[in-house]
Structure formats: C-alpha cells, structure tokens
C-alpha cells in the first residue's frame, strides 16, 4: 500500500494556452515585428531598437506612399475612356486646354487602348490577325501540355512543340509560299537518301572497315539534308495565305518570336558547344572555349550592331537577309554561348561513374551522351535554362535599338505620336509594358523555383 504523497498531483495539469508571444496573430506579430524593436535593456540595444522602429516606420511609409501613388495614378485618377474621340485632349488639364483639374496626374488609358493592337502585333494587317491568334493558341496549349504533369503524351507533345510547331508558326505568320524550286528540293532529297543508304551499307560492313566507322556520319548528314529540304518544301507550298513580311511584324509578337527562336535554337547549339568545350581534343575544346567566351564577353547590343552592320559584309553580294533575321542570328549565337555554360554546369555535376558505367557497357561517345549523360545533366539545369530564358526575354527589348519594333520599341514609337501627346503619355505606356513584362518574367521565375524545389526533392534519397 502506497501512501499518497501530498506533493504529487492526482489529476493532470490543465493544458495552458501557448504564451502570447509564440502562437496566433499576436505571436506572429511579436516574433516578426516587435521582438526586434523592444529591447531597451542596455544603451546599445536601445539604440538598435530605436533604429529598427524608425527604419520600419520609414519603410511602411514608403511602401504605402508608393503603392497609393501607383493605385491613384493607375486606377483612381486615371482616365479610362474617350467616348467623344478627343484623343489627347481627354487627358489634358484645364491649363493645357482640356477639362481635367489642374495638377491632375493619372494614367491616360485611352491612349493605351488606341495603341493596343500596335503594341501587341505592330503593323500586322488587321484582317490577318487570326493567324497570330491561332499560332498563339496552339503554342500555349502545347506549352502547357508539355510542362504540365499528369497529362498523357507529354514527351511527344514536347517534341512536336520543338519541331512541328515552329514550322506551323512560321507558315502562319509569314504566309509560307517562299520561292524554292521543287526540282532542287527533290534532287537534294535523293542525295540525302543516297547518303543514308551508303551509311546503312557501311554499317552492315559491305564497304570495308573504313566505311563501317564513317557510316554514322553519312547517316546523320543524309538525315540532316532530308529534314532541311522537307522543311524547305513545306514552307514553299502555297497555302493561299496573304504573305506578311517581317517588316509588318511588331510589338509583343516580335518579343515572343525573338525570345522563342533564341531559346529553341540556343539549346542544341549550346549543348554542342558545351560538349565541345569539355572535349579531350584540344583543338575542339579551345575553339569552343574561344567561341563561348567571345560572345559572353561582349554586350548584346554590340552583337546586334555587328549583326546589322557587318553581316551584310560577310556574306556574298546579293545574299540579303531581312532585318529581323539578322537580329535573330545575333541573339541565337549570343544566347547559345550562355546556354553552353549552363549546360556545362550540368555536365560537371554528373558523377564520373556514369561515364565509366556507360563505357563498361560498350556504349559509344554519342550513345553515352544521348542516353546517359545529357538526360541527367539537362534535368539538373532546368532552373538554369529557365533563368537564361528570362534573361533572354528581357534582353529582346534591345532589338528596338537596331530599329526593330518589339513591345518596347512599339511603345517608344507610340509616345512619338503627337495626336496623343500629354505629359503622362510616357509613364502610362511604360506602366503598361512593365506590367506585361513583369507577368511573363515573374511567372517564369516562379516556374523555375517550382522546378528547383521539385528536383531537389526528387534527388533527396
């Protein structure tokens, strides 16, 4: 029989609520705001607390002031419509000859509505706009499909997006029907087929040992020639679409075309450059390194200058590119160099055992790369690729300096329109363009962070 101790409780202690500083809204407020500014124990701590109070107040004031200023400018004080078709006068104050109160400062949205089509598509013919809409819709569906998890055939859709979609978009946007002789294309395709069959025979060992080695190269060249000429053939077909030259493109359309072409072309080019830089053949690695470091060492704007001024000098007389294609070539080479460095980072992260394992299984260099190394390396650097793409997307604005009207260029030329000349004209259009760019870039950076988290999770064992 145990004697009950007086000092031992017979019932459970009551569950106390957590201290106010630890839970709930007050706890959060305490930990995240007030804890850092309420220590007055010593002089140093008091000074620090005082500083924190003043600094926080300043930031709150700045934030409220700026946010209110923005909301006031963009929404509360803004002029939203121009029912009478007054154009610039709708955004004029009394002093300037309009009807708004003096000292008014707000966005002039009717100006943006009037320039909207121009800012998005440039001087593209209005009755042909459905072609842009169609390619944008197909593009966004394909993109979402390829990026979205748990959808069937993701891989196939992705491949189609990289191969068939550019072709479709090109035909839709330009109208296709480029001049090329079908006989010439036919001849090239026959040449390609011949090369492939020579390659096949070589691989089977019918043409001696030398050809057995070189068969692969013959095959690749043959397939390349055929693919190129099939593309040429399709582009040359007359689909009965009105041709629209790139001179009539503009605005967001150009921004998207430059950015997407840049990224699609720079990825394969970057992979080749990255592999070349890590090659054991000194000539190859030195050449690739020089190429990469050259493009990374100069600003994009000088590359665009070079593409627009020097490219015509480098090519045979009579070969004439249009302005957009020149800029595209510059952007491609430039972003390929950056992409190469991103891919190289991925290649360096691959364990040496992977190469050795592949070698032990008797895979050739290209098989090792294609089947073992690149799939792992590229998955590793998806966030890096997306970040390069964000950079490229922002950098497309630079083409406006060499006279191509991308979104920003279209905005700049809209500002020059005297029919809408008001003091708030520039700020309004910059706000509009800024919002568009922010939505795109912020969205992509979120995707990159999402991928990063997902990849680091899948790598944690």
């Amino acid at each position: 029989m145990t004697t009950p101790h007086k000092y031992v409780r017979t019932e459970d202690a009551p569950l106390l609520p957590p201290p106010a500083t630890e839970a709930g809204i007050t706890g959060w407020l305490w930990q995240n705001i007030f804890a850092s500014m309420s220590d007055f124990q010593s002089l140093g701590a008091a000074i620090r607390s005082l500083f924190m109070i003043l600094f926080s107040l300043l930031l709150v004031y700045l934030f409220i002031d700026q946010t209110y200023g923005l909301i006031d400018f963009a929404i509360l004080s803004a002029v939203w419509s121009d029912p009478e078709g007054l154009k610039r006068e709708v955004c004029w104050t009394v002093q300037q000859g309009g009807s708004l109160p003096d000292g008014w400062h707000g966005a002039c949205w009717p100006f943006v509505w009037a320039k909207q089509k121009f800012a998005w598509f440039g001087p593209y013919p209005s009755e042909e706009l459905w072609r842009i809409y169609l390619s944008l819709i197909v593009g966004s569906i394909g993109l979402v499909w390829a990026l979205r998890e748990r959808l069937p055939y993701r891989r196939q859709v992705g491949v189609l997006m990289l191969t068939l979609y550019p072709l479709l978009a090109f035909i839709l946007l330009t109208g296709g029907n480029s001049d090329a002789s079908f006989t010439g294309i036919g001849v090239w395709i026959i040449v390609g087929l011949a090369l492939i069959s020579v390659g096949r025979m070589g691989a089977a060992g019918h043409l001696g040992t030398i050809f057995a080695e070189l068969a692969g190269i013959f095959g690749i060249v043959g397939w390349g020639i055929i693919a190129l000429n099939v593309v040429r053939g399709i582009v040359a077909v007359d689909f009965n679409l009105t041709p629209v030259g790139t001179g009539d493109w503009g605005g967001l359309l150009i921004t998207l075309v430059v950015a997407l072409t840049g990224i699609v072309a720079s990825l394969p080019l970057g992979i080749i450059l990255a592999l070349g830089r890590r090659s054991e053949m000194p000539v190859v690695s030195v050449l690739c390194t020089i190429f990469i470091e050259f493009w990374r060492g100069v600003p994009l704007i000088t590359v665009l200058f070079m593409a627009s001024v020097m490219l015509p000098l480098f090519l045979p007389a009579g070969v004439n590119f249009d302005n957009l294609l020149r800029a595209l070539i510059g952007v491609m080479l430039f972003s390929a160099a950056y992409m190469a460095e991103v891919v190289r980072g991925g290649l360096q992260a691959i364990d040496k055992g992977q190469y050795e394992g592949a070698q032990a299984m008797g895979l050739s260099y290209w098989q090792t790369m294609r089947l073992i190394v690149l799939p792992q390396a590229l998955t590793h650097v998806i966030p890096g690729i997306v970040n390069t793409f964000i950079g490229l997307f922002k950098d497309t604005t630079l083409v406006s300096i060499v006279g191509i009207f991308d979104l920003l260029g279209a905005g700049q030329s809209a500002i020059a329109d005297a029919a809408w000349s008001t003091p708030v004209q520039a700020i309004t259009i910059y706000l509009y363009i800024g919002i568009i760019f922010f939505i795109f870039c912020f969205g992509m950076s979120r995707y990159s962070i999402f991928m990063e988290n997902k990849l680091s999770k899948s790598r944690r064992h």
Partner: protein
Amino acid sequence: MQQSSLKSIIYDARLRGYFYQVFILGCLAFGLWWLIDNTVTNLADRGKTVGFGFLTENAGFQISSTLGTWLFDYKVGQSSYLDVYFIGIANTFLVAVLGIAGATVLGFTVGIMRLSKNFIIRSFATVYIELLRNIPLLLQLFFWYFAVLRALPSKRDKIEIIPDVVAMNITGLYLPAPVIEPGFIYSVIAFVIAIIITLVMKSWAQKRQFETGQRFPVLWTALGLIIGLTMLTFWITGSPMNWSYPEFKMTGAILRRGFQSGSGMVLVPEMLAVWLALTLYTAAFIAEIVRAGILAVAKGQTEAAYSIGMRPGMTLRLIIIPQALRVIIPPLTSQYLNLTKNSSLAVAIAYPELVSIFAGTALNQVGKEIEMIFMMMMVYLTFSVATAAFMNWFNARVKLVER
C-alpha cells in the same frame, strides 16, 4: 598483316582524334577564307579600304560635356576620332564604376534586409527585388530618362537639394566643382604616403600580435594618419583647392537665365538615368547573391563562434563574412561584368559612351564598320578577360584548404 595494320590505324583513338581535329581546322580555315573573301569583295564593290588611318582624322560632331570630354579636352573639328574612342571608353568606365559602387552598397543593404527577422524590412526587400529584376533594364532606363528626369523643372528653373550648393533641373544635376591650384599635388602625395605607412604598420602590428599577443590600435592610428597627414599638408601648402559653386541667374535677359556655364559641375541627365537604372537593376541581383552567400554559411559556424565566447560583431566579422565572401565574390564579379556590359544600353538615350559615340555617331560618319566594331568589342573583351583573370586568381586564393 597489311589489313590488320590498317585496322589498327583506323581504330586508334588518338590518330582518329588527330584526323577529326585536322578536319575541323580545315573547315574553320575554309570558313574564315570564305568570310574574308566575301568581305574583301564587298568592300571593293563599295569602294572602301581597310585601315586605321581614320583615327587621326578630325571628328566633326558635338558630344555633350561629360567626364570624357573634360579629360580629353574635346573640341569639335579639332579632336580626332581616336579622342572620340577614348572619350567613349572614359564615359563607359565612369558610369560603370559609379554603377558598381552604387549597386554594391544598395545590393548588400537589400540582401541583408531580405534576411531580417523583421517582417516589414524583409518583405520590403522582397518586393524591391522581385519588381526590379523582372522588368527589362531598357524599360527602366527609359522610365528614368523619359518619364522621371524629363518631368523636372525647365532650363530656367530649378529644384534645390542643398540650397545654393546642389540643385537640379532638366539639364542635369549641378554640383560644386573642385578648382585645383598648383601645390595641390603635395596633398595627394601626402595621402599616398599615409596609405603606404598604414599598410606597413598593419603588417607590423599583425606580426607583433602573433608573436606577443599584444594588439595595436591600427584602425584609429591609420585614420589619424591618413586624415591628419593629408590635411596638415593641405593646410601648410596654403589650401590650394577651392570649390566653384554652380551659379544660377533668376533675373536678366530671358535667354541668359538658368545655370551659367563655367561654374560648378553638371552631371547630364543621360548619365543620371543610366546610373540610376544600372544601380537599381543590378542591386536586385546582388541582393540575391548576398542573401544566398550568407545563407550558405552553416548555422553551426555561428553557434561555434558564440560558444568560444565571440561577440556577435566579431562573429560576423571574423567567421561569417569571410566564409560568405567565398560564395559571394564569384557571382558578384560576374554581376559587375554584366553591369559594365549593360552600360552599353545607354546608346538608347544617347549618353556619350563607347557604343553610342564610337559605334554610333562616329561609325555613321566614317563608315569603317569592321575596324570600329572590332575596336569597340576589344574594349569589352579586354575587360572580360581581365575580370576572368582576377576571378581565377581569387578562386585559387580563397579555395578551401582541405586536409
């Protein structure tokens, strides 16, 4: 026998490597020859010659007064295109150096704010970073130049920032300018000598501390030495420097009102816009680098430092910062390089830097595309190579020495 030796040649990886490399070199040589041949033909068709003779010709266009024009004493019709080249380089470097200084200070501040325990400070920094780095730099540049600086008071009016000393209007920011008189060079010499003495003293103090454990107040001595010695020399030589304040006329003939040329110093609005845009944009990237760098230092390091009795300030200075810098400096350098390259965007608002005046205005007048684009690219490439060399040296120096 014959057959097998041929086979061994074909399957020899080294020989095959040589063959591929020779083949690639051949393709490259052919490509280069093709390009050069085309270029020569095209140049001949246009009746142009190649050569750098144009550099000594006189440039006949106006360049707005900036550091470069002041350094090289630019005069329309008298200065050569080589001067234009150097003015471009000087102005590029001016805005790059100012931008690097500004972006570093702001970037470190915002990066540390981003790690604050205080929600207000932390979220303010986050909003700043996300907003600034997701909007193209060129758009920000246009915003500062066309929307903000163009909204300043007109040429005949001003906003005073410090009354009678610093003021601003649409023609730029007016600051007092130092007027140097003969004799000033002694103060500069004294300053350099003070720095040299400080360096010697620092290494002596360190050596003494390692040997005897006694510390020497290096910081205060150095400050006293540098400020004291320089000021003393300045005073003894009779204060050979004055300030020229910007002069502003409110009265008189209408066309003469406003800031008078020849007094004070003016920073043109183009430069201010480029500087603001570069600083604010790059600071957002630097802030992220700083944050990542500080987070990369394991928490155990701080705890270990506290456990051996270090104060928070010492922990930060001796434990965290040296380790964080190892992570921070490489990407930071590449941001500096980006900033320098991005300064070329100034061509869009006609700030007279390298791309704008040399590859823009001067190229239009002379028409020597190849030489001029080559000269322009060399400047940027030299800077890149120099940075890369520094990076290699730095990485080798701070590399973790592992047991």
